[in-house]
């Protein structure tokens, strides 16, 4: 096929073009013709189609995502907000932290190992592109039923991929989630998050300014990886009838990425970079158009200078390729030599592929002939916007009316004991050590807390002991019952987890995993969840700094539960004051903070014992969450508590069992007046935590809670080698431990 140049396109206005095959709609294609005042060339069509895909343009979601900025609470900590590769937050002492969560759901279903591995690789490059050294990763995961044969294919591959890539990069994995539910059977969720640290003055942005500055592509050679992957893989429902659209999967090279990290940090250190962008979805199309669009607008690229792995690639394919482990930097001419020298030091291939120009056009040449001439904003930032119809589904009322409070409850102490053991040994509540032991949590030597703690925590300054904490949460069952409340509960839980470690919650990132936006019911879930999250962020004072949307998570007509995953970042001035979950010292008093109501809708108990999902999720009280957080942080700072564990799915009993097993000690619980044992143990009321208070601190702690109006109820004592609920049952730690620890290996090993 001959080269489709700009000139040729102007001369052949009526040539047929495969816009539909590339995923564009008729009106979108017409709009491109209008923008260009001619038909697009093949290369231009490739660029627009990937950049205007759902995955890159957020066309279905952006009208809703706007709320995150519009409703954002005033926060002095926010240095860079939504729109950049990742948001940046001030954590004090001149340090800034950047963090973000992204999805790699569809690729991970097709090729679990590589899909998950490249998911980690992608988010790490986003963080790196902000100017930060990546310091930790987290991985919120959702799989189908734990005993389904396909879960045995997907889960081990995903876990090995996340470990294989992250371990090889030298990034400690400090948190995440593993949730099983049949709704994710054909559509696992593989979300990955990364945190990076830098000094304020090191923040870098993705923009190309300064005509004459050079555009340098560095990292891996470009191959035929995932061509069309971004538009097709991330936006289409799986459907066996269209195998032809199944594109090549990308393969990750973590060693190359490790070199890319070290090399990039070194060029930052020597101040050689004027602008930088990672190459992720949509590859060079995205990097060049975004850099130019955010900068002064003009850029000229000689595409034939791009180092290739496969010499037969066409210019369109080079523009669309999603080969991993590549970055694009804007460098002043006088600094180019030093830049290339540092790349050589790290065995990283680097090539000047173009320069920033005076004009406002992105121009791309192939062996001297022009194949692209576009206004970069029209590609990168002015894609289509859909106002998709949404409607509350007619089944929502029926679902909510199916109250979990009416489910039969245990009648005898024996039954209660048996249900506790079933809960603790259920796949969602059992220990995830078989999975998390496959991740390096020690590398970099700064890990203060990691799984199974409430939040991961790393030290970022060895002198002052300044640290940051992160937790990710999301409960699709709650969100299915009520997406508005469900999203708020996800935020509340992550917030509570961070506060439980003693860190002050500062900011939020999110990964919104939903079904097809073309289904009005799904779109309603999405609209409700974003509204709920934006409202809650405002009320808690934690702005959304960035995130990711993953749509089309469904098999056939059936969507996954709406699954907003929320990451909360917190800061702690002195990590030596962090609060772990372990009950370590016998004799310490156990206090339950917050109010316990009869709330079982969407609960772990209703799932494990009754395989039931119905009713309403627990009520949200964000003022209470904030107060609870303040108390947990003060108590940690002033040494009033030695352990804290937030209460969430599985309720009090799950938290107590985890804290006991972690510390190797037992606990004796007494059911307080006004509650029955069942409700005390299994209710999932939000805004609660259990803490261990040294006897010497009891008065001071009680006074603080009393003065600030937080209900604090003494429910027992750390003691012995069993978990005992007085008058009900006692379960030896050894029995709990084997039930809790053997469940996942029995299913997967």
């Amino acid at each position, binding site marked *: 096929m001959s080269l489709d140049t700009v000139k040729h396109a102007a001369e052949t206005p009526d040539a047929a073009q495969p816009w539909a095959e590339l995923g564009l709609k008729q009106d979108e294609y017409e709009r491109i013709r209008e923008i260009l005042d001619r038909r697009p060339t093949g290369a231009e069509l490739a660029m627009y189609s990937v950049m205007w895909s759902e995955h890159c343009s957020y066309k279905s979601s952006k009208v809703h995502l706007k709320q995150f900025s519009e409703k954002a609470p005033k926060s002095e900590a926010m240095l860079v907000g939504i729109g950049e590769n990742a948001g940046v937050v001030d954590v004090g002492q001149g340090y800034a932290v950047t963090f973000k969560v992204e999805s790699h759901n569809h690729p991970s279903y097709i090729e679990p190992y590589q899909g998950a591995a490249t998911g980690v690789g992608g988010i790490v490059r986003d963080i790196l592109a902000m100017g930060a050294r990546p310091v930790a990763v987290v991985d919120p995961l959702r799989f189908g039923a734990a005993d389904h044969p396909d879960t045995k294919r997907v889960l081990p591959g995903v876990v090995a991929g996340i470990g294989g890539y992250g371990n090889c990069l030298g990034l400690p994995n400090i948190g995440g989630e593993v949730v099983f539910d049949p709704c994710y059977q054909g559509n696992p969720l593989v979300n990955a998050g990364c945190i990076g640290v830098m000094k304020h003055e090191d923040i870098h942005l993705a923009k190309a300014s300064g005509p004459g500055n050079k555009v340098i592509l560095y990292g891996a050679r470009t191959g035929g990886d995932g061509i069309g992957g971004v538009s097709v893989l991330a936006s289409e429902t799986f459907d066996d009838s269209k195998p032809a659209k199944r594109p090549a999967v990308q393969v990750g090279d973590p060693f190359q990425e*490790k070199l890319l990290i070290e090399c990039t940090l070194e060029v930052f250190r020597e101040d050689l970079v004027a602008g930088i962008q990672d190459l992720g979805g949509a590859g060079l199309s995205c990097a060049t158009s975004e850099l130019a669009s955010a900068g002064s607008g003009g850029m000229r690229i000689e595409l034939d200078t791009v180092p290739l792995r496969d010499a037969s690639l066409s210019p369109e394919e080079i523009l669309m390729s999603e080969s991993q482990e590549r970055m694009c930097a804007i460098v002043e001419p006088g600094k180019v030599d030093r830049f290339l020298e540092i790349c050589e030091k790290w065995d990283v291939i680097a090539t000047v592929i173009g320069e920033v120009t005076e004009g406002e056009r992105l121009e791309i040449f192939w062996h001297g002939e022009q194949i692209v001439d576009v206004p970069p904003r029209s590609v990168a930032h002015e894609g289509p916007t859909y106002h998709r119809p949404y409607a509350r589904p007619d089944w929502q009322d029926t679902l909510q009316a199916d109250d979990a409070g009416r489910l039969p409850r245990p009648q005898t102490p024996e039954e209660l004991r048996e249900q506790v053991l079933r809960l603790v040994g259920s796949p969602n509540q059992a220990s995830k050590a078989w999975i998390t032991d496959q991740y*390096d949590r*020690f*590398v970099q*030597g700064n890990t203060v807390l990691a799984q199974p703690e409430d939040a991961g925590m790393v030290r970022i300054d*060895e002198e002052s002991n300044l640290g940051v904490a992160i937790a990710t949460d999301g409960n699709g069952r709650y969100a299915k019952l009520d997406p508005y409340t469900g999203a708020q509960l996800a935020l509340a839980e992550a917030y509570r987890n961070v506060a439980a470690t003693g860190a002050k919650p500062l900011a939020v990132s999110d990964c919104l995993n939903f079904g097809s936006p073309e289904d009005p019911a799904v779109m309603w879930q999405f609209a409700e969840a974003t509204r709920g999250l934006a409202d809650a962020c405002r009320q808690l004072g934690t702005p959304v700094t960035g995130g990711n949307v993953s749509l089309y998570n469904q098999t056939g007509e059936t969507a996954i539960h709406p699954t907003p995953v929320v990451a909360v970042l917190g800061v702690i001035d002195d990590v030596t004051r962090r609060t772990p979950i372990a009950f370590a010292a016998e004799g310490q008093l156990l206090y339950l903070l917050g109010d316990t109501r009869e709330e079982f809708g969407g609960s772990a108990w209703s799932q494990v014992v009754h395989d039931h999902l119905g009713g309403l999720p627990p009520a949200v009280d964000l003022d209470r969450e904030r107060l609870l957080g303040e108390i947990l942080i003060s108590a940690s700072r002033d040494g009033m508590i030695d352990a804290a564990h937030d209460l969430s799915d599985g309720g009090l009993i799950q938290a107590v069992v985890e804290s006991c097993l972690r510390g190797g000690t037992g606990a004796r619980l007494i059911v307080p007046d006004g509650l029955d044992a069942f409700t005390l143990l299994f209710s999932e009321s939000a805004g609660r935590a259990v803490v261990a208070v040294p006897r010497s601190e009891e008065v001071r702690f009680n006074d603080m809670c009393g003065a600030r109006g937080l209900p604090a109820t003494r429910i027992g004592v750390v003691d012995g080698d069993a978990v005992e609920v007085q008058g009900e049952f006692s379960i030896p730690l050894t029995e709990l431990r084997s039930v809790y620890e053997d469940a996942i290996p029995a299913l997967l090993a």
Partner: protein
Amino acid sequence: MTARVGVVTFPGTLDDRDTQRAVRVAGMEAVPLWHRDKDLKQVDAVVLPGGFSYGDYLRAGAISRFSPVMESIIEQAKAGMPVLGICNGFQVLTETHLLPGAMLRNNHLHFICRDQKLRVENADTAWTSSYESGQEISIPLKNIDGRYVAEERVLDELEAEGRVVVRYIGGGLGGYPLEERRNPNGSLRDIAGITNAAGNVVGLMPHPEHAVEPLVGTGRTDGLGFFTSILKKLVTA
């Protein structure tokens, strides 16, 4: 003059900065060494840290072994300079044949990261003299290619000459069959670390550099002894 300990960085080395920190915590000067330089900058001892040099593609340690810095290190090690290989560093040392045997994929095929109990079998090497023989310590283990193998004859020789330096004695929590709770990867004779005949070259799979501060890592400082041992040796030498 303080003792100077070189810490080598290969492409893909991960624990170099942690190892430098451990050297400093022990009161010595950490000297970064780069894989392309033959010059060892007159250090008194060298640590080959953990990580995935060259991605561990081909075999762990196989590619790094041929680097310029290793030429000098092999030469100096043979002349008696203390060398400690941790994890990937141990793998490099077996690939160079400074230490016998080889490291293979863990028998359960997974990467494993956990706090690992060890017994110090030989407290007379350059790197273990701060411990008592028979002392039990607990430090992080994290690898996927950690299964030590060697011919029966070699193993017998190692045992007879007291060259098994540290041995796995348990520590993993649940989730693994009983055998693996003791021995995390199928290493023959539970070997976690060995030394050469002269006692100056030591390799071990677990990571003492992640257990030198009470605050981070496992919260224990059981690994510090490897670094104070070499300090003791260097200042008394």
